[in-house]
């Protein structure tokens, strides 16, 4: 489906799947941080 080899190359990460995984981990980290943040300053 992708047009050329350049399109297959994700930045920093080798594949797009790894980039997606990074975003999911990033979101998980944000949710944990938000949880800590909302409870810490009480």
């Amino acid at each position: 489906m992708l047009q050329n080899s350049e399109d297959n190359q994700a930045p920093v990460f080798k594949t797009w799947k790894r980039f997606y995984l990074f975003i999911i981990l990033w979101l998980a980290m944000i949710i944990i941080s938000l949880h800590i943040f909302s409870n810490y300053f009480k």
Partner: protein
Amino acid sequence: MKLVDWIVLCGTLLLIVLYGIYKSRKQKNIESYLLGDKSLPWYQVMFGVMATQASAVTFLSAPGQAYTDGMRFIQYYLGMPFAMIIVSAFFIPIYRKLNIYTAYQLLEKKFDKKTRVLTAVFFLMQRGLAAGLTIYAPALVLSSMLGWNLFITNLIMGGLVICYTVSGGTKAVAHTQMQQMIVIIIGIFIAGYYIILLMPEKISMSNALYIAGNMGKLNTLETQFSWSDKYNIWSGIIGGFFLSLSYFGTDQSQVGRYITGKSIRQSRIGILMNALVKIPMQFLILLIGALLFVFYQFHHSPIHFNNANMSMVESKNRAYHEKINQQYNTLQANKIEIAEDLSFAINQQQEKLKKQKLNELKKINIAENELRENYKKMIVKLDNTAEAKDTNYIFLTFVFTYLPAGLIGLLIAVIFCASWSSTAAELNALASTTVIDLYHHKTQNMQKQLLLSRITTIAWGIVAIAFAEFASNAGNSLIEAVNVLGSLFYGTVLGVFILALFFKNVRGTQVFISALISEAIVIYIHIFHAKDISFLWYNLIGCLNTLLLANIMSIISRLQK
């Protein structure tokens, strides 16, 4: 406003408009006009997607929302990164492979013309009206706060954006959106810096966060599930995911931004970077609101933040206005005294005194809120077309009261930029959908197509301004109705697109009928059960209904054969 504010405001806006026109001066054909020759790097795609989503009201209301309701609004964005992954993995490659101008073209290629036209009409209906509100809502705030004429503010707010959108098309939109986003980010963070700077000396950042946290303003995560609660982690992740997927995957005002990337790779990076930075950015904007709340524990705040409403109550019921303000001012004086005692207790680490003063501060804030609510009821009683909610005015009241000359001009420029960045993308998308999905087949002449695109952009601009002027007279209920209108269609349209991308056996007529039925179900739920089910769930319901009905029809028709 002082002269220096006018210079900053006009200078910033003029530079952006001229830059947009200059950078996009050569428009050869409809491809360069509507797709920007598919030449944009990832960072322009990212700024474009971000600027289109964030209208002026987003920047005005988010700090105000954190001030009144705490930071729980952040949960609304939790589903967005998942949606961005789906858009990047499935939507972008297919849009680019089919080399299309609008998202709805995909539906004719997969199903039939009537399904394409149906979704395009859904889009034109809701986005055409919403574009009017993107102009009207900030114009209303500015005219109330600065005493500007609303009719003229609407005209300027809408008129200038038409100029560069018509002349430069998609490229002008993309170039200006990047500058606008930079002005917005700088302006918002300067205002945030001033809130921290103007806090009493003894209040450190951690003390301010301690007070905000204990007053319930740092409630960033609510894990309890409820169908009717708009902002909890579940409605945020699940409801927010479907809303974001519909918006970023199928709304032409967003699709039109990322299909203009230089390559699939650039489009993907742009959209994924947006997934990475959006939540932290929104967090900081909401944090500004929570800190503003702490700031107003040590400073006097008005009983109502919209000056126009205050003047109206004062002129129509002076006795009530004076009496309630007197009560409110007494509370304010007590509140500031308690807040000072609390900061002393925090600094001296006197736990018992700290708890006692926190309780007193909570009670006094509850009493203050009651007076604020009573005042709002009086506003509606005296003028039922007035908008009693003053969330959008809280942040700007701080800006106009405490920021130095020059920065006020910059913050007004921020409002214009935020409004323009959304309106420009909307007008551009409305024009492409009208020309490509409704008229394109009628002419193959490139010059005529380009002219037609320009004329439709002007026409939609005029519709948007006219609707903004109409909204000025119609009042608050109309604005709410238009906002709801958007969320009614999204789920069904997303369902149609998912069928197009992932289900090979369904046919056009089956999709068309199931879209109509599921739309009727969503409208029924909205009319009869709006109080039980938050609007975030409409997207999920509309989408699942469309998927289910189309598949049932497809199975039945195959069994009959």
